[in-house]
């Protein structure tokens, strides 16, 4: 049975403190509990969480839903948003954690990446170094979410064509984003249209999908 690796890269810089980080934590809970009610996800989905602020940490190594325990997330008072470094760590973890198919053994499905930020990369040089590397990792889908007025779409568009812009980063909007992520992860099990390849479900009303 192939695994479906899902990487969540979450901005935990100072600006996320307070309501936003609580909304993210809440969103993660909802995401996990929704996936735990989905037989398809329970069979294949594995989740990893990487957070980035001035430090970059893989808080949760790739784990199945059965054993997964959500980590504690505490953003620092202030400091830079090292998104570039987070993407570099992601690439390293992908190399380490993803089982590639061989002639003898079936590997994982193409991994999915969801990145969420309320700002922009502070380490732009590293970000620009990381983007081409990410693109070689054969992701099934890369979705970047820019949450709130200060979030900048343009950098994210260098990373992926699928940028979701949330006008506000309040709890209900972030929650709708996480619900949408859980629906997107489940897409593989839905009916496949006669016309197209993998399609993401429609985003929630508050979200603008920039393609």
């Amino acid at each position, binding site marked *: *049975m*192939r695994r479906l690796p899902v990487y969540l890269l979450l901005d935990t810089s100072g600006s996320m403190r307070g309501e936003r980080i609580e909304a993210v934590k809440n969103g993660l809970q909802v995401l996990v*509990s929704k996936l*735990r*009610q989905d*037989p*398809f996800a*329970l*069979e294949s989905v594995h989740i990893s969480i990487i957070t980035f602020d001035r430090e970059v940490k893989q808080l949760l190594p790739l784990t199945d*839903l*059965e*054993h997964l325990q959500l980590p504690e997330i505490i953003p620092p008072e202030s400091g830079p948003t090292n998104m570039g470094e987070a993407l570099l760590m992601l690439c390293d973890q992908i190399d380490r954690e993803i089982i*590639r*198919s*061989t*002639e*003898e*053994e*079936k*590997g*994982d*499905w*193409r991994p999915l990446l969801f990145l969420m930020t309320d700002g922009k990369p502070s380490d732009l040089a590293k970000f620009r170094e990381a983007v081409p590397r990410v693109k070689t990792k*054969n992701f*099934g889908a890369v979705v970047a979410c820019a949450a709130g007025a200060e979030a900048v779409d343009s950098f994210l568009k260098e990373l992926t064509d699928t940028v979701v812009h949330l006008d506000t980063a309040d709890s209900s909007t972030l929650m709708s984003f996480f619900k949408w992520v859980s*629906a997107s992860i489940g897409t*593989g*099990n*839905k*009916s*496949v*249209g*006669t*016309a197209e390849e993998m399609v993401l*479900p*429609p985003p929630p009303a508050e979200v603008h999908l920039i393609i």
Partner: protein
Amino acid sequence: MSKTITVKSQEGKSYQFVDDGSPMQGGMKDVYFAPDRSYVVAFFRDKQDFNSKERLTNIVKNYRERIFNQAGGDYWKDLFCWPYDMVEYNGRTGIVVPTYQKHFFFQTGYNPSGNQISSIRGKEKEGKWFASAQFRSKSFKLHLDKSELGDWFKYFLVCIKISRAVRRMHSAGLAHSDLSYKNVLIDPSSGRAAIIDIDGLVVPGKFAPDVIGTPDFIAPEVMSTKHLGKTDPNRKLPSIATDRHALAVMIYMYLLYRHPLRGGKIHDTDPQKDEELGMGSKALFVEHPTDLSNRPKLNQVKPTHLPWADVNKIPYTICGPYLTDLFNKAFIDGLQNPSARPTADDWESALIKTVDLMQPCQNTMCDQKWFVFANTTKPVCPFCGTPYRGQLPVLNLYYKKPDGQFGLENQRLMVYNNQYLYPWHVNRSIFPNEKLTAEQVKPVGYFVFHGGKWQLINQTLTSLKDVSEDKEIPIGSAVELTEGKKILLSTEAGGRLIIVQLVAN
């Protein structure tokens, strides 16, 4: 803020639904409940063109009437969740569908300790829960509670219901086009099933499909031509023939809890391409008798998928001779040759005949509780390995040929204690399906093991006769089942003769 909205159908009927801002989302529709939850209104997110609307109109009217407005039409209300009206609201097209019946929602869901982690109580019993080995494995934390799982006999009943429903659609010239465990709800605790999401159905030559199916159930010819344009003459789209593939896959999965084509063979090191080949042009039955290259590799299988993933331990032949034959036709002969696939009718009759071969396992702890008699002198439960102890009567069925001689039918009835005999055993012109009258669903006799003897008790048969002894068996009396005993069940046309065989252990 939730508000109740009233909509009117074209014919002026009004319906209400509650909009709380977060409808349930299906693959293509947003679903809203009626205030009393007796129906739902499901709106398509995409704008429906003229053709789609015409199709929907036909589904809620003509096709529906073709199935429901006939003698015995009520029978189908339990087997189909069929939309019965169409509405428009804010430029969106919606269909009105009956709410799923109560037994299609989880009562308990996960096992008690799994329920501490998460809960699916109240969620729909989507078929996938019951088609995967993991959710019945005690080593998987979130396995289903025993009360939800049912026993193996119930899965045969579930498969009969699904086959019957598909047979009915096909005989009305309709193809479901997206049969999968997502679109079939099942209740293994009672052996019931219902087909849902009927709005996509396909009418050959009239309404083309807009989905190619759901992964796991897409027919190989559809998978291998999906890169071609929709109007390309070589493109294969869902049809009655592809429904037959999906039905075969579903039956295999509900009886064996594994996929018939997902084995160890690698077609490409890219997972997407591997999937397309493995489910498409290179599809190969995991239990192909001579080509062993797609056998599951047990060292690569998750422990929670055992023992079901082990095709040597639990081969498909445990489903008995009739189903083995159909699985061969579906996954060997007919895999790439749609016209060779068994029909839904074939599945329904083979499943019904197989039910007559089932024996309760004598091990009260056995999870499956039932097995199919394998026509051996030493019957053993293939699941728990418990051998059958004692005398086992096997009834071979014969029918009266036009020349007055009795010919052997390819059908047997295995006897167990407190088993009932039904009119369709007695008379070969009666089939156990939706056409049975109220009288015909009542048992006519039963079998008991009493005082060290196997006996058939006559309840309502008017012409039961012990041919060996040349003796009538009146209602309320018994006939003992002994080796070689000939019993005529009925003197009416189509009445069967049984010859008893006793397997002793």
